[in-house]
């Protein structure tokens, strides 16, 4: 057949028409649409057998019980454990996002050794044997040179077996330098030691049964204490919408969520909470509405008293009456005198009044005098160690381990003063003073630190004045991180020996801070380790064995799991089956309060302070009082004050904020990578700034570029900035979002305790 042009056209027209009439185009159209419904790059999660595993969450000290839903060996979702006494089925935002941490791109997949410059992020994969032998050779070297004390360790918490294991290791090794990350626990411990005579105890509040709560800047629904429990309690206070159960007054500079949920918000000048507490005490004493039975029978130092030498000492009553009249307190705090009087009366007249201290989430220590002043209020209304009141909770003794064996080096070096000065003559009250660490290292005042181990902590990010912290770290020749995630400190380390995450490991979870009923929970592996990681406990045991000698003798357990089992003793089976053990009798049984002070009473006047070797100039220094802690900077150069605020939607501790949490942030907190700082509209107008505008905030520690959010809920003259953003490590979902508050923050030491008692820093606004 001859194919001319016309034929050709005809052929194709015919073929086209034929095809159109055939089912082919329809089939293709259908196939294409089916393809769009199953795009190969959109994942299809595989089905499988569904199981539930109970464990405990250790992302914060809250100690919640969680249930992990699994499909085959994949963890699908974390939910609150229904029958767990701490959280009763509830869960917090961070706990829910835990799987993003487990499976996230920030995980460290194997032991790593630094190859590039520090912080450059260049690593070499090494085996566990290499990693441990590298660390043990460094540690042996120090011992050989007789300077075992130059090894130090920074921990997130010293509670539980892991914390104790580190302490034990360093005792056996010969260093006193196990330093815990600061938190309200430090201040609680000292307050209890001074007023109750309890060592290493913690304050627990019976929030559920109190009916009048004054919270002094505590972020009760912001993640304070055990966050889920506190938020649940907040709902309990609200009760049935038709009736009110408890009254909550929030004393805070900024209208936080806690302040918003409270029945009353009392905006207070930052850092003057102690003055208000003393003012309330003044009102309560003046009106004679304090619990006279309790004060007379169980308290010491309320009235003036005479010591053995015949010297008369000032009592709490006189101090409060003479120096804290409502008018004076009003001048200090900015709260009207009438309000102070009314609040004092209402508080004392309530059945179960409760004064709560511990700023924000409790991630900074705070002033001991402030805590004492607030705690004194609880004593005034006799609400100590009873229903709806405050309980002193002793740390339950979980480690009846054999005594540590020490060789000569361990004995000699272990006696050296701690590098942070805690427990020395200068700071006899504090047990840990990580806030002093950077300065001591940088000024070379103490001995050098040559090996630093970091576990469950991220000091380069979480400690104030990041530059100073990093400088201190730069002076330490060998840093080892046990972090599961590539956080700032891990990034700066020389060696990373990654721990399992909390969903892959065994761990005991002690009673959460602030809970009156002791609860011991158990975290257990719910999924197989995803990467080549190892339990830090196992690493310590192996390390001790490698080091040999008395150190090895002190660590005779096969592995961490055996150790945990041994430690729990006869509780192990119950704990393993149930996942938690609860001592419900606690708090109910203690009818009469007991105090272990030298007077055997609750001490308004802390006699212990005069016995510690601290130079006491006058009686006031032994009494709760308001002692201004001035933030760094002078008011003429820096007319404003920058304070941090904490949000439960931002994980601001060692853990980086998982993407889900960042997603929930409002666009008045973060926009692209810009952080928003809150400012009162009046202040903004005064300095000529408007909503969303960029501004430079300068503090004595540095400057940061931020954007401004005009917020009526903040006191004029104050700038408030969220904590927990601005990471420089982790992955692209966490890194570089916003600014880290600590880069422009400086710590301010409270002389008596050495604790970081600051609450802000002076600042000024500049145009960009």
């Amino acid at each position, binding site marked *: 057949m001859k194919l001319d042009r016309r034929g050709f056209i005809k052929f194709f027209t015919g073929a086209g028409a034929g095809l159109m009439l055939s089912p082919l185009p329809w089939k293709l159209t259908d196939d294409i649409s089916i393809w*769009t*419904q199953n*795009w190969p790059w*959109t*994942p*299809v*999660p*595989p*089905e*499988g057998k569904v199981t539930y595993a109970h464990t405990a969450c250790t992302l914060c000290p809250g100690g919640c019980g969680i249930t992990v839903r699994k*499909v085959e060996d*994949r*963890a*699908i*979702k974390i*939910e*609150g454990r229904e029958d767990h006494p701490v959280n009763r089925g*509830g*869960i*917090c*935002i961070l706990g*829910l*996002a835990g*799987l*993003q941490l487990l*499976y*996230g*791109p920030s995980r460290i997949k194997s032991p790593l050794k630094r190859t590039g410059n520090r912080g450059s992020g260049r690593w070499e994969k090494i085996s566990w044997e290499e990693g441990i032998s590298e660390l043990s050779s460094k540690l042996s070297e120090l011992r050989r040179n007789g300077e075992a004390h130059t090894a130090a360790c920074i921990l997130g918490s010293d509670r539980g077996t892991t914390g104790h294991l580190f302490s034990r290791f360093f005792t056996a090794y010969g260093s006193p330098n196990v330093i815990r990350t600061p938190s309200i626990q430090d201040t609680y411990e000292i307050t209890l030691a001074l007023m109750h005579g309890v060592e290493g105890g913690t304050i627990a509040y019976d929030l559920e049964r109190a009916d009048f709560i004054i919270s002094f800047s505590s972020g009760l*629904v912001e993640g304070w204490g055990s*966050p*889920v429990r506190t*938020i*649940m309690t*907040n*709902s309990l206070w*609200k009760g049935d*919408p038709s009736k009110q159960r408890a009254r909550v007054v929030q004393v805070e500079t900024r209208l936080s*969520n*806690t302040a*918003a*949920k409270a029945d009353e*918000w009392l905006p207070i000048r930052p850092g003057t909470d102690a003055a208000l507490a003393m003012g309330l005490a003044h009102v309560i004493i003046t009106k004679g509405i304090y619990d006279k039975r309790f004060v007379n029978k169980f308290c010491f130092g309320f009235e003036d008293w005479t010591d053995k030498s015949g010297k008369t000492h000032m009592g709490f009553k006189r101090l409060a009456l003479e120096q804290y009249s409502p008018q004076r307190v009003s001048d200090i705090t900015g709260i009207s005198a009438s309000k102070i009087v009314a609040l004092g009366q209402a508080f004392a007249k309530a059945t179960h009044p409760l004064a709560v201290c511990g700023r924000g989430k409790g991630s900074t220590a705070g002033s001991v005098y402030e805590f004492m002043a607030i705690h004194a209020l609880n004593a005034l209304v006799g609400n100590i160690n009873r229903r709806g009141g405050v309980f002193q909770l002793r740390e339950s003794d979980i480690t009846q381990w054999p005594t540590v064996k020490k060789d000569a080096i361990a004995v000699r070096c272990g006696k050296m003063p701690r590098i942070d000065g805690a427990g020395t003559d200068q700071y006899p009250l504090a047990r840990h003073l990580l806030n002093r660490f950077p300065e001591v290292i940088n000024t070379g005042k103490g001995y050098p630190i040559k090996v630093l181990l970091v576990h469950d902590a991220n000091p380069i990010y979480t400690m104030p004045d990041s530059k100073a912290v990093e400088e201190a770290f730069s002076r330490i020749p060998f840093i080892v991180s046990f972090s599961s995630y590539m956080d700032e400190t891990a990034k700066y380390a020389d060696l990373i020996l990654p721990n399992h995450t909390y969903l892959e490991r065994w761990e005991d979870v002690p009673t959460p801070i602030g809970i009156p009923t002791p609860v011991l929970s158990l975290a257990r592996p719910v999924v197989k380790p995803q990467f080549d990681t190892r339990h830090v406990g196992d690493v310590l045991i192996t390390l001790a064995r490698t080091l040999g000698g008395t150190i090895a003798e002190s660590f005779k357990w096969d592995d961490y799991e055996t150790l945990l089992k041994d430690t729990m003793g006869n509780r192990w089976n119950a704990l393993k089956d149930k996942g938690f053990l609860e001592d419900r009798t606690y708090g109910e049984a203690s009818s009469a309060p007991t105090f272990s002070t030298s007077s055997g009473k609750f001490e308004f006047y802390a006699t212990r302070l005069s016995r510690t070797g601290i130079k006491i100039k006058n009686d006031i220094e032994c009494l709760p009082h308001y002692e201004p802690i001035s933030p760094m900077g002078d008011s003429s150069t820096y007319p404003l004050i920058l304070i941090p605020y904490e949000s*439960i*939607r931002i994980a601001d501790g060692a853990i980086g904020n998982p*993407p*889900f949490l960042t*997603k*929930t*942030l409002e*666009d008045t907190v973060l*926009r*692209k990578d810009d952080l928003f700082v809150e400012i*009162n*509209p*009046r202040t903004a107008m005064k300095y000529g700034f408007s909503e969303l505008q960029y501004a430079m905030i300068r503090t004595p520690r540095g400057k940061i570029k931020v954007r401004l959010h005009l917020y*009526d*809920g*903040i006191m004029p003259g104050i700038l408030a900035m969220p904590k927990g953003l601005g990471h420089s490590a982790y992955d*692209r*979902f966490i890194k570089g979002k916003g600014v880290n508050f600590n880069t422009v923050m400086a710590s301010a030491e409270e002389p008596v305790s050495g604790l970081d008692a600051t609450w802000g820093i002076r600042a000024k606004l500049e145009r960009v």
Partner: protein
Amino acid sequence: MKEAYKETTRYGMVIDLDKCTGCGTCMVACMAENNISFKEDETNKLDSITWMRVYKITNGRPYPNTEICYIPRPCMHCEGSHGHPAPCVSVCPATATDQDPKTGIVSQIYTRCFGCRYCMAACPYHARYFNWWDPVWPGEMEKYLNPDVSPRMRGVVEKCSFCHHRLQRAKNKAYLEGRREIREDEYIPACAQACPANAITFGDLNNPEHKVYKLKKSPYAFRLLERLGTNPKVYYLSRKGWVRRAADN
């Protein structure tokens, strides 16, 4: 009789705003349960998928009389009125969204939707979200995806389903146990389950034995934009007058 009763089931929620602390747990519970994706930057709230979104509102008064309140906003699962179904249901040209007459739940078929976004224009609550991007789970995160809920492809609209798959699961369980009805506590969405403040109550609004039935009759109960006649099945409670006023025009 039993069957007739079932016909009138209307699942709904009552959210106590006085209890809600704005912690955002409901948002993340929803994201974790429903395989909601996330991008590197989620700060543009105009293209950020949050089936459950917590709004923050203020009373607009200056310091120190400022108050704030949080309003969690899932899909309202509007019942409609005057013969109108939910605003989004009638407009969908491809029948990709529908209301289950048995439960009142407004569904969304992702594989049916072709992304015209007319339903988003119709919804005054901004409860509907468009997948502007292909969903991506970094690292090993694909492992945590829930097989009960299919991840959505780019170019389709998605929204809160009241965790409909949980209803399916509860129904299957009841069926296997030879029951016709499911109990009140057997089916609750992820947000209500997670809320640490116990602010979210879920149940059958038509069943006098369910908690929501009583709660919705509270004098403090209200709904968002009642005047539009969308007839939402999500109720709110607040003792604060300014909050109630802020809910409708």
